[in-house]
């Protein structure tokens, strides 16, 4: 059997492609781009939440937020490792991120203005991420699928802690509930945009589906998210900021209004509220960490043969 046929046969049989297997060059490139940008999203995603660590309302919330932000770093590392198995180096990915040539999820180009945003991000942004990532646990590329299994286990904590923040605010004073509503108003539409363009406008979908990198279309994932999330908003007593939102009793699904695609493309192209600041902060952190990397390398060079007892 020819290489390409053997590759597609493995994919079609729901078996996994592993790093040492032959793969089409486009498959490799598509995966590098997708996994690296997924990793960058985890890393840049630390910034909007890191913004509130020093201002968390209680010590408990602060400890939780630190654990969550540390998880995001961990998720980035799992994903960078998965991308490296495709033949790109970690340092090259860093360079692509730091120079703005690689994207990360546009959702992180919105500012976190109040404490309620920590609730809305966990509930909506991590909720949307889980919808996408659960699908990706069945991706055809083994290292990516394995990273996703790990990440999904941990994301569940993220979403639940976010919803609990919203619940606490909604059971609090009128002012606290208004803060929760304001956060939902600002994060709802950007969260729906996380699933990307409509299927008809999504150029990569068809090939990615054939290769089983992607298993479910953008619009179908978005529908799953809306169906899951609207009843959760109802329970909180909050109003989803979409006058066209209504439940279709025949199908059981929610119909919702059109996304502002001009805003979507503006943020993708780099002119969202926080694009510039996020990238500058990432570069600054990298530069300020240079002495740590140099010191660690110098230490390793001085002690070349550290031996460790086996466990």
């Amino acid at each position: 059997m020819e290489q390409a046929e053997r590759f597609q046969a493995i994919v079609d049989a729901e078996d996994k492609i592993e790093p040492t297997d032959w793969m089409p060059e486009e498959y490799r490139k598509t995966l590098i781009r997708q996994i690296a940008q997924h990793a960058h999203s985890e890393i840049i995603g630390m910034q909007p939440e890191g913004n509130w660590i020093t201002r968390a309302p209680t010590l408990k919330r602060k400890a939780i937020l630190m654990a969550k932000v540390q998880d995001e770093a961990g998720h980035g590392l799992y994903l960078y490792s998965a991308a490296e198995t495709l033949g790109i180096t970690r340092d090259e990915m860093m360079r692509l991120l730091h120079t703005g040539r690689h994207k990360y999820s546009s959702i992180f180009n919105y500012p976190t203005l109040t404490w309620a945003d920590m609730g809305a991000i966990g509930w909506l942004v991590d909720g949307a991420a889980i919808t996408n990532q659960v699908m990706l646990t069945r991706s055809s590329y083994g290292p990516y699928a394995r990273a996703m299994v790990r990440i999904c286990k941990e994301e569940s904590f993220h979403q639940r802690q976010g919803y609990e923040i919203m619940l606490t605010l909604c059971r609090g004073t009128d002012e606290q509930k208004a803060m929760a509503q304001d956060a939902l108003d600002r994060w709802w539409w950007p969260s729906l945009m996380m699933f990307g363009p409509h299927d008809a406008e999504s150029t990569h979908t068809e090939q990615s589906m054939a290769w089983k990198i992607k298993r479910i279309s953008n619009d179908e994932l978005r529908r799953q998210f809306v169906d899951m999330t609207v009843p959760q908003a109802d329970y909180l007593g909050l109003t989803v900021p979409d006058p066209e939102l209504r439940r279709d009793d025949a199908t059981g699904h929610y119909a919702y209004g059109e996304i502002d695609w001009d805003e979507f493309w503006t943020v993708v192209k780099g002119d969202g509220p926080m694009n510039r600041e996020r990238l500058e902060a990432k570069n600054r952190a990298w530069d300020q960490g240079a002495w740590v990397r140099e010191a660690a390398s110098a230490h390793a060079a001085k002690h070349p043969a550290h031996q460790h007892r086996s466990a």
Partner: protein
Amino acid sequence: MPPNTLPTSIDPREETPLSYEVPLAPGEKLPDLPDRTIAAAGWPLWEVFVRQRRGLSHIHAGSLHAPDAETALQNARDVYTRRVEGVSLWVVRSDDITASDPDDAAELFEPFGEQPYRHATFYEIPDEVGHM
């Protein structure tokens, strides 16, 4: 790099060309940042093995970059055991692992598939004999 070679550590301080074209959205302009060489560390890759609990073997959990074994262990603890996933860690330089060639897989492993007599279920024992 062809896809069937495992990446090895390179010195990233040497500027390397990008391994693929990065597409831009229609009308997108690149941000106004210099395309500088990032002074990276170029640390080697380590494979991490975690023993979930006593009585089980260490199982491969993933990999990470670190300058030395000691730092690799510390980082492995933070990256792979944040929820008490293990009671013991191994780290091994990825370069030190010798792997079987995937092209040899058929030759290496398939002959055993033709030897059902290596399995207990190959043999028929009358019920009267009881559990064996």
